[in-house]
């Protein structure tokens, strides 16, 4: 698990470079990503439900990103996009299309539903934290 969390740091930081995140924020983005993946792994151990683990991890990542954005006075997206990259169901999208090509109807439906649920969990997590911070800002 430690290896996975360290890998998450490198994967997220490298992805942040690919997304042209300015140099001074790379380390912070990497830490955000590895915190998120750590939460995800722990929840997978307890509940073994991908959707719930993704949702909880997104909440933490979005929270961290908002705090970092406040500190460095940047748009939240700067930390949020690299942070959630490990969770986003890109591989799920791939599996959907692969099962369509291989004509496996059951797998297609399974991966389609799972990808939709995970993307939905991420979007909802981001949405909740966004709304919370907007309310706080207004007082």
């Amino acid at each position, binding site marked *: 698990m430690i290896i996975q969390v360290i890998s998450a740091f490198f*994967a997220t930081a490298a992805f*942040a470079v*690919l*997304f*042209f995140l300015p140099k001074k924020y790379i380390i912070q983005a990497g830490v955000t990503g590895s915190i998120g993946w750590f939460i995800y792994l722990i929840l997978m151990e307890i509940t073994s439900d991908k959707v719930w683990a993704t949702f909880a991890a997104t909440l933490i990542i979005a929270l961290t990103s908002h705090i970092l954005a406040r500190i460095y006075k940047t748009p939240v*997206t700067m930390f949020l996009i690299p942070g959630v990259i490990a969770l986003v169901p*890109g*591989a799920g999208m*791939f599996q959907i299309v692969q099962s369509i*090509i291989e004509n496996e109807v059951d797998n297609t439906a399974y991966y389609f539903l799972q990808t939709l649920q995970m993307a939905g969990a991420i979007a909802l997590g981001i949405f909740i934290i966004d709304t919370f911070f907007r309310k706080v800002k207004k007082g």
Partner: protein
Amino acid sequence: MNYKSLFRTAMLAGEIMAQSGAETYRVEDTMVRILKTSNCQAVEVYATTTGIVATLSDPSIESIAGVKRITNRSNNLSRINEVNQISRNICDGKTTAEDAYTQLISCTSSKIYSNRILALATIISMAGFAGLFGGSLLDGAVAAVNGIFIVIIARLAENRINNTFLVDTAKSFAIAFITMLSVQFIKDTHSGIIIIGSIMPLVPGIPITNAIRDTLQGDYNSGTARAVEAFVISLGIALGVGIGMGLFNLIERMLL
């Protein structure tokens, strides 16, 4: 106040944001804020993933309208940050629209990372994702080798093939073929983990998440456009991986 130049600046700001992968509401919000500094009665901006329409009108002026088609999209966080900063300066009255326009032009030509660093980042991210999905060090090493090939293909295709679908197919073909070959000869490696880890820089994770975010926000046009974009990208990758694995199986059967 020069409304024309303000409008021109707002259009450019929106265009850069949309091309850099910003969410639709952020594009609209930025443009509306810039245009509102004119104190005109009617300020309307309608942005989608593939284009922007805006209008600025007031009884005292001739109304201005503009359309901007957005053809290529990528993720560029530093540009979103810069445009955000410039638009804030306009709203605070720190910069004039003309100065902001030249600043925006210069931010589109700046490149904060060299090709060498981007290539290195691609390789590290692929190895990192193999590790993140529970792969061993050896799996990571194979993913890194895949990364080297991806970088070479990207370099070869640059300025020659102007079709991301084909390039993605070629890249994922190489990933699948090299992975199958490596798993055949190196013990204790897992083809599934390596392939999924290696295609992570290609797969449309951000478009599919932004599709749902846009949809929740009420931007249904952008939401569906992004979902379709994600599907098409995935199709290219799945085709490449399918062909790569199929070809490998064919060769294996012929040789053994």
